[in-house]
């Protein structure tokens, strides 16, 4: 399940609802990863663009990988503006066993950072500035710029 919200996430609602939703499925481990906007370099917050069709495909592929291990993934992300100290991202794994849960949350979060079609902007003095220096080209990027 992939949830998108306008603005900052209601973390207590989401992480407790997910826990309740899976309570009867006999998972032994639940690990939510919660990402919060840090106050740094004088920003007022961050802002996000999300391209949903490809994000859904990426998430579905990960869900299939998790299911093969007996695990389940959930994710929530913000669109638009998220102020400092608000949260913009939750990724979670449920798994029968600890090891699968720990390994899956790490790989899922790391792949998210370099693959999910989401663009980040700094909010600063009323402007929305693309965070180019912190962004990563998607694997396989650059084919249009190849010498022919």
């Amino acid at each position, binding site marked *: 399940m992939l949830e998108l919200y306008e603005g900052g996430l209601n973390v207590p609602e989401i992480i407790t609802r997910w826990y309740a939703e899976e309570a009867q499925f006999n998972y032994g481990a639940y690990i939510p990863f919660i990402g919060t906007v840090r106050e740094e370099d004088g920003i007022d917050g961050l802002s996000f663009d999300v391209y949903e069709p*490809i994000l859904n495909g990426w998430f579905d592929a990960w869900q299939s990988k998790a299911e093969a291990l007996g695990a389940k993934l959930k994710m929530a992300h913000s669109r638009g503006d998220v102020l400092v100290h608000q949260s913009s991202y939750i990724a979670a794994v449920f798994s029968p066993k600890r090891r699968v849960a720990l390994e899956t949350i790490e790989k899922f979060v790391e792949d998210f950072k370099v693959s999910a079609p989401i663009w*980040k902007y700094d909010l600063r003095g009323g402007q929305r500035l693309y965070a180019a220096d912190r962004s990563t080209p998607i694997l396989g990027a650059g084919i249009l710029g190849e010498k022919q």
Partner: protein
Amino acid sequence: MITIEFLGPIQKAPLTLEASSLRDVAEVLKQDSEMTQWLENCAVAVNDTLVASLDTPLKSGDKVSLLPPVCGG
């Protein structure tokens, strides 16, 4: 005709043009000086599936999307 859309921080309206492969799309975009900074770091999707080759064929009605470097979270 195919449509090219520019995602995230690329401030550019969609384009419509004739093209039979991504190679044709690359030819056109290379003429556009605004696009120089993006061509080398954008991933490309055809009809919302990422593709890895310039030889990917295109047919009328296809949608080509350019995805610049990402940073979710």
